[in-house]
C-alpha cells in the first residue's frame, strides 16, 4: 500500500499522507480502492491541488519541443526524399527538409539559451559550451555537411548538460541519457569515412545517424525545460 501512496506528489504527501494512511489502516483497501488511489494520484499529478515549491514557468520550453517535432519531421522527409543519380551512384535528396532543419535548430538554440540563463554565475565553462552550441546549431543547420560544426554543437550541448546537472538544474538520469545520445553519434561521425555505407553515399543513413540521436537529446532537453525547475536550484 505504501507504494500506492508514494504515487502521490511530494507536497500532497506532506499535507495528507498521515491521515490518508490512518484512513486505509482503518479500512483496508479493496482492489477497487487500490485502483481508485492510483487514479487519485494521477489526478493530483495532472491537476495538483496542494501547491509545492514554487516552480518557474518556462514557456520557452515549448520552443525546443516544437523544434524537436520539426526535426523529427525533417528526418522523415530526408529519409523519403527523391532518389537521385550522379556519376558516383545513387543517393537520396533531402534538400526539401532543409527549411525544417533550420527552423528546428533555431528553436532548439532558443531552448539552449534558456538553460544557459539558468546556470549559476560561476559556471563559466558550461556557459561557454552552451553558447558554442547556440551559435553552432543554426550554422550547422545551414551547412549540415560540415561535420566539425555539428560536433561543436553536440559537444556544446553535452558541456551545458553536465553544467546544468552540476548546478542541480537537471536530474542525474538526464545526464546519462545525454552522454549516451552524444557519445554514440560523435563516435560514429569520426568513424564515418571508414564505414562501408559512406562510400555508397546513402545520404539518409548518414543523416539518421546525426539527427536520430540528436532528436533524442532534444526530447530530453525539451521535456526538462517544460518541467521548469525549483527556484532554489537557480541561485
Amino acid at each position, binding site marked *: 500500500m505504501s507504494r500506492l501512496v508514494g504515487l502521490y506528489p511530494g507536497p500532497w504527501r506532506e499535507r495528507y499522507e*498521515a491521515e490518508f494512511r490512518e484512513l486505509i489502516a482503518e479500512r483496508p483497501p479493496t482492489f477497487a480502492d487500490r485502483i481508485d488511489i492510483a487514479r487519485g494520484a494521477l489526478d493530483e499529478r495532472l491537476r495538483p491541488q496542494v501547491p509545492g515549491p514554487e516552480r518557474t514557468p518556462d514557456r520557452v520550453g515549448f520552443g525546443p519541443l516544437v523544434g524537436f517535432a520539426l526535426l523529427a519531421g525533417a528526418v522523415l522527409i530526408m529519409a523519403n526524399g527523391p532518389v537521385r543519380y550522379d556519376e558516383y551512384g545513387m543517393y537520396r535528396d533531402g534538400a526539401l527538409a532543409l527549411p525544417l532543419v533550420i527552423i528546428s535548430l533555431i528553436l532548439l538554440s532558443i531552448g539552449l539559451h534558456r538553460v544557459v540563463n539558468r546556470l549559476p554565475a560561476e559556471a563559466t565553462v558550461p556557459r561557454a559550451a552552451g553558447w558554442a552550441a547556440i551559435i553552432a546549431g543554426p550554422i550547422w543547420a545551414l551547412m549540415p555537411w560540415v561535420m566539425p560544426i555539428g560536433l561543436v554543437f553536440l559537444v556544446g550541448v553535452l558541456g551545458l548538460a553536465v553544467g546544468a546537472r552540476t548546478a542541480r538544474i537537471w536530474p542525474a538520469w538526464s545526464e546519462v541519457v545525454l552522454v549516451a545520445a552524444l557519445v554514440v553519434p560523435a563516435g560514429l561521425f569520426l568513424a564515418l569515412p571508414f564505414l562501408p555505407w559512406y562510400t555508397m553515399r546513402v545520404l539518409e543513413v548518414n543523416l539518421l545517424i546525426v539527427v536520430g540521436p540528436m532528436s533524442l537529446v532534444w526530447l530530453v532537453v525539451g521535456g526538462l525545460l517544460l518541467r521548469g525547475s525549483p527556484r532554489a536550484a537557480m541561485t
Partner: protein
Amino acid sequence: MIRPAGVQPSRDDDRALGDLGRFAEPSLYILVSLAEGPRHGYAIMIDVEAISGSPMGPGTLYGALARLERRGLIEALEPDERRRPYRLTALGATTLAAQLDGLRSFTRTGLARLQGRTS
C-alpha cells in the same frame, strides 16, 4: 451536478463546484456529510456510503477533500492523533445550499413533468 434546462445555477455555485470534474458529485456528498458537523476522513467515507448507497474510494475522497479545502469550502481542524477532522466553512455552507436549491428545482421540474405525462 446534472442540471436541466431552465434551472439556473447561482454564481457562487458555479465558481465553487463547476470545475471539479469527476470530483463534483463526491464533493457534494462530502459537503452534505459535513453539514451535520466536523468529521474525519474515515467517518466521512462511512457517512457518504450511507447517504449515497455506494462506497467512495480513498483516492476519490482525498481528491475531493483537497479540492474543497483549496476552494475554502471546508477547513481542516487540529488533528486528533493521526486523524484530522474537517468542517464546513461559511462559504461551503452557502455553496451547499445553492447546490441543494438547484437540485430541488431540478426535482420539482422533473416531478411536474412526470405528473403532466401521467395525468
